[in-house]
């Protein structure tokens, strides 16, 4: 197989509050022989909030990010569910609306760029599953996670709306479960695995947000999960750092280790604890 090569859109979180996610992304890519070219020019995607304020500005900025994947002739890979949705939604809207695309390109032309629409955009999770392949992952696993019950937490923007997502059915997603199994772990089925963690309303609607986080952690704990795994740094932040509010909201201690999907894969592939940034977790992960 030809070496896989992608343009990596890191998003902001991986550069700030979840440094372990960026470290583990590179560690895993290294093990798998996937080449990632970081889009250092990229701006914030607006995280589903900028478009509430200024939808057109959000489109222009996201289109600009895509331009830099296009100019490198690469598929863009994202490592955040919300970056993925915002970027994919921008692409979908521009590719299906010539006049909107023209308006956006008029602005981009002022900085010498043009959005063409010829780069695909995919989440790293699906790049690993669809492009690299789970069978090959299985062959490369050196430390199977066979002693762990692992609860997959998909995160909304990775599965909904389904026409923009990576191919999972949002009512019964399987990709992350399949990755857990490929790593040798036991995948835990629980009701909240495809539900919302509440992240996007944390400041605006703190009670709702804390209840949703609490229910997700509680659902996984009640099905005997040892830890949770997620492909989204925003879900991770919510589930890893906000357990106090979440426990309070559901009236029960719901603290539980939460790993990024890259960290889980990295463990199975034999990456070290340091390479995976496991010291950057707020909920204890010393079980590893």
């Amino acid at each position, binding site marked *: 197989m030809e070496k896989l090569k992608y343009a990596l859109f890191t998003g902001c979180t991986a550069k700030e509050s979840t440094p372990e996610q960026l470290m583990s992304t590179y560690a895993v890519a290294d093990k798998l022989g996937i080449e990632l070219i970081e889009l250092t020019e990229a*701006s914030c995607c607006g995280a589903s909030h900028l478009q509430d304020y200024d939808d057109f500005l959000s489109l222009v*900025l996201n289109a*600009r990010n895509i331009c830099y994947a296009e100019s490198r002739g690469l598929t863009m890979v994202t490592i955040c569910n919300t970056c993925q949705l915002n970027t994919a939604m921008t692409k979908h809207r521009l590719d299906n609306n010539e006049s909107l695309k023209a308006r956006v390109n008029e602005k981009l032309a002022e900085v010498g760029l043009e959005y063409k629409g010829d780069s695909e955009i995919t989440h790293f999770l699906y790049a690993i599953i669809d492009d690299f392949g789970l069978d090959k992952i299985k062959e490369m696993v050196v430390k199977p996670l066979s002693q762990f019950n692992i609860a997959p937490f998909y995160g909304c923007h990775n599965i909904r709306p389904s026409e923009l997502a990576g191919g999972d059915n949002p*009512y*019964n997603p399987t990709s992350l479960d399949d990755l857990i199994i490929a790593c040798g772990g036991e995948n835990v089925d629980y009701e909240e695995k495809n539900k919302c963690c509440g*992240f996007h309303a944390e400041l*605006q*609607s703190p009670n709702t947000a804390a209840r*949703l986080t609490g229910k997700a952690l509680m659902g996984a704990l009640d099905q005997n999960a040892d830890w949770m795994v997620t492909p989204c740094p925003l879900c991770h932040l919510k589930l890893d750092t906000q357990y106090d509010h979440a426990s309070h909201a559901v009236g029960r201690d719901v603290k539980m280790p939460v790993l990024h999907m890259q960290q889980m894969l990295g463990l199975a592939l034999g990456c070290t604890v340091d390479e995976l940034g496991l010291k950057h977790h707020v909920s204890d992960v010393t079980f590893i």
Partner: protein
Amino acid sequence: MTSITTQTITFKVFRFNTETDYLPAYKEYRMEVTSEEVVLDILNRIKWEFDGSFSYRRSCRHGICGACAVKVNGKGVLACKERMNDIIELFGNELTIEPVSIKRAVKDMIVDKADFWQKHDAVKPYLISDIDEHPKQESLVTPEQAEALLEADLCIQCGLCHYSCPAIEENDDFFGPAAFAAAYRFNADVRDEGTLERLDVVNQMGAGVWDCVKCFECAEVCPKEVNPIEKITKLHNQAFEFGRAPNNVAVRHAVGFAHSIKKHGLLDEGELVRYSEGNLGVLKHVPVAIKMYKKGKIVLPWNMPKSDKLDEIKKLVKISSTVKF
């Protein structure tokens, strides 16, 4: 033509009668299901073949009255539209059928939709306009103007989005996706003069658009592809466009992204929280921030990373901004 196939399916069906039962129960029914059937056929067969007291709503059988909404394995469906084949392919041959909202169940599949209608009413889902009693000509709407509704008028008020919305589940005040879609439908109507009134209603904290968690459940479940969250975004946009956005934590949070991008290209997470909450409000986040800082999860202002080619971003923000706050 493909031939008709048959499979044995076990249904666990929510049974409850508020008048006689203390608690609901799940009854099991096994039956041969053919590839031709829809979920409503199964509901009918439970009633006709197993238990005549089984209750559910249906009327049109054509996906237009919105009465037959139920949940199968948690997926909200219109029973008369949802093909059993698709459901079996997705979930296998053990299926749980429940009303759209267990906490509002009255009898079996029948729920009390009073909350849905009250919230609908709250957003004034009708034309507000001073129309001459004897107009000289009809009020014409061009095709382009009609398109601006973005098909929000296709809503059949089935309630599937409302009862799939986690924000409603946790917050009784929240108006919910169908009400917001209705608010947008009339705000976007050129004949309507009630936009400002409606914007004030939907911008209330707790009940309004700012309490949406952006989960896209409403967009996914809607059988009419109304895409309620798209209309929620439009209502947010209108709040700024018409100068109706209140100066509160939710609004500043959205605006804060623009400030941050202009300065760094990337989001300054700490500054976003400070700007949104204000210097006093931000204090409640200090305990979590300290835990995060200890684990190397907080970037201090002087270490804030910046996008390459920041000048380009600054210029684009300057020339592409369409609103002010």
